[in-house]
């Protein structure tokens, strides 16, 4: 016993280092999968508040740009509204229950330069935000909510190792998957493109609508470079994201009002 205590006293620096390092690495490895990232995630009102102070100071600097973006979005929405009005003879939109609701929010903290990026928004559980809701910017899709507190939520950005998204090539209607392999925040990668599908530079990539998180046909990006597979496998392509993640400020959270119903169906399918 005495020798043990002497040993501990003599080597306490190294032993303490090793044990604390093990704790850190355990925490780190636990967060290295999407679902565990969700579990261990701490969204907390103190950090939220701190980021919000900083954001209110900084937001004055970009008011002009934000105004322009909102005006652009307004124009697009007005155009769409016009289309609905002219088509109302065939399609009574008032009697169609809306499946997707949009909750506006502001990004108060955001990173784009890390391997795994997150952003924090100023809406939380009390505003109806729940885990696994989609987040879009005025230009395209942006991320998925993974953690919520009363007034703030954390979203996993598309710029994340575990951000994987089912997408569709708008021209051919073919499905593929979106990934982000690090590097530039403007560029993503589309993988699993079947070999018979022709992909050209400038093709539009949209959401497939298969995940119930994002509505079908939301813009994701534009093809920049097609990469044919070297050993006869599936092709891939680099795309330019529609969303400018670096200037992400105004976002909308997508609430799927049928989500519970869809989840139940999916669960019964898995269990049978």
């Amino acid at each position, binding site marked *: 016993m005495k020798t043990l205590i002497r040993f501990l006293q003599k080597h*306490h*620096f190294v032993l*303490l*280092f090793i044990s*604390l*390092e093990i*704790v*850190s*690495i*355990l*925490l*780190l*490895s*636990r*967060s*290295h999968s999407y679902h565990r990232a969700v579990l*261990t*995630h*701490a969204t*907390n009102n103190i*950090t939220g508040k*701190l*980021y919000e102070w*900083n954001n209110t100071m*900084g937001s004055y600097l970009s008011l002009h740009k934000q105004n322009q973006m909102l005006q652009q979005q307004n124009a697009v929405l007005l155009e769409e509204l016009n289309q609905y009005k002219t088509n109302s003879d065939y399609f009574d939109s008032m009697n169609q229950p809306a499946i997707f609701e949009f909750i506006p929010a502001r990004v108060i903290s955001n*990173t*784009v*330069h*890390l*391997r*795994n990026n*997150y952003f924090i928004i100023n809406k939380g559980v009390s505003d109806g935000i729940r885990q696994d809701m989609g987040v879009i910017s005025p230009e395209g899709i942006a991320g998925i909510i993974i953690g919520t507190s009363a007034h703030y939520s*954390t979203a996993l950005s598309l710029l994340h190792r575990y951000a994987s998204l089912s997408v569709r090539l708008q021209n051919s209607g073919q499905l593929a998957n979106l990934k982000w*392999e*690090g*590097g*530039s*925040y403007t560029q993503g990668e589309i993988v699993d493109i079947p070999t018979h599908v022709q992909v050209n530079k400038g093709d539009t990539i949209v959401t497939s609508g298969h995940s119930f998180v994002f509505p079908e046909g939301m813009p994701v990006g534009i093809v920049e470079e097609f990469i044919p597979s070297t050993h006869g496998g599936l092709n891939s392509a680099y795309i330019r994201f529609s969303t400018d993640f*670096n200037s992400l400020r105004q976002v909308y959270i997508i609430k799927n009002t049928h989500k519970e119903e869809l989840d139940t169906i999916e669960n019964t399918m898995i269990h049978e």
Partner: protein
Amino acid sequence: MNKTLIQIARLTGLLLLQVWVINNIRLGGYVNPFVYVLFIMMLPIAVPGWLLLISAFGVGMIMDIFMSTAGLHSAALLLMAFTRPAVIRLITGSSIPENISYPSISQMGDRGWISYTLVMVLIYHGSLFLLESFSFQQIEYTFLRIILSSIASAIIILLLSYLFVNRSAKGLFP
């Protein structure tokens, strides 16, 4: 001012600087300086080993909460704190140098302080980015991030220490 209060004030200042200002630097995704490590670098020489490690763990955890990265910054900062006594011995020639009460520009001299900063910052960013990528894929990219971010951090830390240099050694950054 009370010595503990000085440390707490320095920590708060550095954390706010990191979160509010430095984290907004985005140069092509390669340059992510972390200057809050200056807090661990400037703890007194005589600080007990256990306190050094616990502080590094705690401060790293605070950074992890801000950056939404569980365990990443605490692991890197712990390694940096662990190597600190050895680095000090390497640069000053003895583990508890008599003429130095805490590592600083006024006590170590320009050359000593610059090499101390470079080594500490390189250890921190090296372990941070290697742990973050968690693989040897794209190793060139990771190395480029380590080198560029370390240089950026070292420059900011050196600027800070020259700005707040106080020869009478009573300020926040003596």
